[in-house]
């Protein structure tokens, strides 16, 4: 019995030690924690592409993609008057060297227009070796982050080899990794030395009990010597004079210093790409079969183009449901991203193409465990249980039509 208990305890101990020694890597950025209606009906990413996912320190990778700003923006989410296209990474393992929105260089936040179409390009330069999970994502003012599809990036090489030089408007070329470091250390060390000297000046004497007793006996005047007062006076005069002199010197040394910049960029949306008019889709009803993990959209699709079109994909919150026979190529190369893809997860009733000029009532069912895995099934318990997403339609010539759709969701619990 005792031996069994000992074995059990040793086993438990070993388990704890092994768990502590091999912690699981954090593989996500909380993207599934955000309420589904925010993920589905705010920023709708598509065509997200990485130029490569294996690079060495100092190499650059270019992240490109597009996004549509949903027309059916949730009432509970602040309107996108200030947003920032960011990169989610475990610290600055890569630095962002460039960012373009609709071809325009952008370093600040900007406003988005509801229903607007945008494309982006972000250049990232590898800084820290390792394997990292990186997403494009949007910071939305008063709403929080909305993630785009992520990608594992492998960086090789040595941290010490990383170089990041920048030329200032004064003409100086500086190394961002070390600029101002010695100066900062120097000032901190100086003040720490002076502060420590003041502390040591007092701490080297008997402190609490003797002083407390003398104060209680009314002998507090004896506890402060004339020299103490002289030093305090020197501090009172000397420190402000020194501080103001150093401040004036810094002013003279950097006469062109400017305040931190707070301007927002102004970026207009592209000409309509999604809901561009040729093909339109309206969702009349949406049912969410909870146990079957299937969402059925009852859509009314009008094909105004001169070619027959076929629904090939429904994409929402970085999850893609592909119709039977669709290879996913209706989005640009997204093989590298880790967006959840349900191949043959989309069924159409009736399945045949929509003829030019035809308006078709179509029953589109997106069924896959991804609804559960990506925590999108919580939609039915949201305060705003409406669904949104992008429908991709393709004609025989390869032309692509995208419709941003939205609808209230009716749950089916059995």
């Amino acid at each position, binding site marked *: 019995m005792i031996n069994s208990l000992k074995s059990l305890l040793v086993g438990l101990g070993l388990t704890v030690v092994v768990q502590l020694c091999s912690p699981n890597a954090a593989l996500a950025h909380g993207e599934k924690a955000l309420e589904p209606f925010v993920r589905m009906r705010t920023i709708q990413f598509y065509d997200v592409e990485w130029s490569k996912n294996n690079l060495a320190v100092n190499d650059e990778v270019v992240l490109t993609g597009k996004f549509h700003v949903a027309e059916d923006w949730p009432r509970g989410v602040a309107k996108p008057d*200030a947003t*920032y296209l960011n990169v*989610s990474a*475990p610290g*600055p393992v890569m*630095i*962002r*060297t460039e*960012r373009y929105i609709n071809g325009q*260089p952008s*370093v600040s*936040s900007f406003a988005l227009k509801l229903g607007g179409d945008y494309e982006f390009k972000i250049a990232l330069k590898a800084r820290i070796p390792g394997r990292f999970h990186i997403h494009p994502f949007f*910071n939305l*003012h008063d709403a929080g982050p909305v993630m785009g599809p992520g990608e594992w990036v492998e960086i090789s090489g040595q941290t010490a080899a990383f170089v990041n030089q*920048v*030329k*200032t*408007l004064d003409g100086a070329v*500086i190394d961002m990794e*070390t600029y*101002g*470091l010695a*100066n*900062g250390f120097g*000032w*901190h060390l100086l*003040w720490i030395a002076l*502060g420590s000297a*003041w502390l040591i000046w*007092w701490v*080297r*004497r*008997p*402190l*609490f009990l*003797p002083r*407390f*007793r*003398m*104060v209680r006996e009314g002998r507090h005047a*004896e*506890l402060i*010597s004339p*020299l103490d007062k002289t030093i*305090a006076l020197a*501090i009172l005069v000397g*420190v*402000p004079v020194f*501080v103001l002199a*150093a401040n004036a010197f*810094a002013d003279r*040394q*950097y006469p*062109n210093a*400017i305040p*931190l*910049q*707070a*301007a*927002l960029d102004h970026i207009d949306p592209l000409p309509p790409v999604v809901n561009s008019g040729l093909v339109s889709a309206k969702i009349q009803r949406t049912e969410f079969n909870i146990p079957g993990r299937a969402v059925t959209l009852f859509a009314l699709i009008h094909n105004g183009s001169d070619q027959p079109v076929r629904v090939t994909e429904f994409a929402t919150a970085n999850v893609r449901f592909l119709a039977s026979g669709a290879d996913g190529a209706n989005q640009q190369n997204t093989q590298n991203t880790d967006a959840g893809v349900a191949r043959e997860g989309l069924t159409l009733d009736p399945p045949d193409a929509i003829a030019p000029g035809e308006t078709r009532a179509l029953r589109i069912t997106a069924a896959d465990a991804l609804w559960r895995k990506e925590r999108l099934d919580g939609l039915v318990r949201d305060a705003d249980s409406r669904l949104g997403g992008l429908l991709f339609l393709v004609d025989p010539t390869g032309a692509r039509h995208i419709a941003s759709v939205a609808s209230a969701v009716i749950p089916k619990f059995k």
Partner: protein
Amino acid sequence: MTVTDLKSAVQPYAGEKARLSRAYDYLILVLAFFLFVGAFHLHVALTVGDWDFWLDWKDRQWWPLITPLMMITFPAAVQAVLWPNFRLPLGATLCISCLLIGTWITRIFAYHLWNYFPINEVLPATMLPSALVLDAVLMLTNSLTITSIIGGMAFALLFYPSNWPIIAMFHVPVEYGGAQLTLADLFGFQYVRAGTPEYLRLIERGTLRTYGQYATPLSAFCAALLCTLMYPLWWWLGKAFATTKYVQNI
């Protein structure tokens, strides 16, 4: 005055009592060190937070207002204990030193080694000059009122000029992405983090726009006024929550 003179002037004990008394001093100092490193550091991280974490949050309007206002708190409370009871004019310097130790530990270990930020991007602010002056004012005046007014104002007014020699070089302009940025802004753009957006960085908001572009002095004087009120508030908090009843029988 020699060290021996200083010690003998403040030593009503001799022999074993003196030795035990000194051991008690060290015990309290060590405990106080860890208490202030932890508690004050947590207080500043929760209240000043990003303004002290990042170069591109150290603006000329909010940073000089928030930082002294939140950092005069513990110094005032600790002075309320150490000065009336022990005539030790080191409460402010002790608190700020402990804060800096905690801050530097986290900047190096958490921000730099764990999260890869270059240390120059996360240089902390210093309030040691302000703390030294606050201690000196209390010692020389022995007055809560004067220390609140003169010391509190000095604490706030000295903050920005004390730190400008550290951060001025990060305010050199650079052209980037078709815009003019400071190097500090560029750190925020290049070294990616979740809290980059301008709308999170509270910079230059408000109505201080009609005084000839001098935002910093206005913020500093506003902080000075508020510090004169914050100081006595925290002095009384320190006084209310500290007790010497365990050493009454010495």
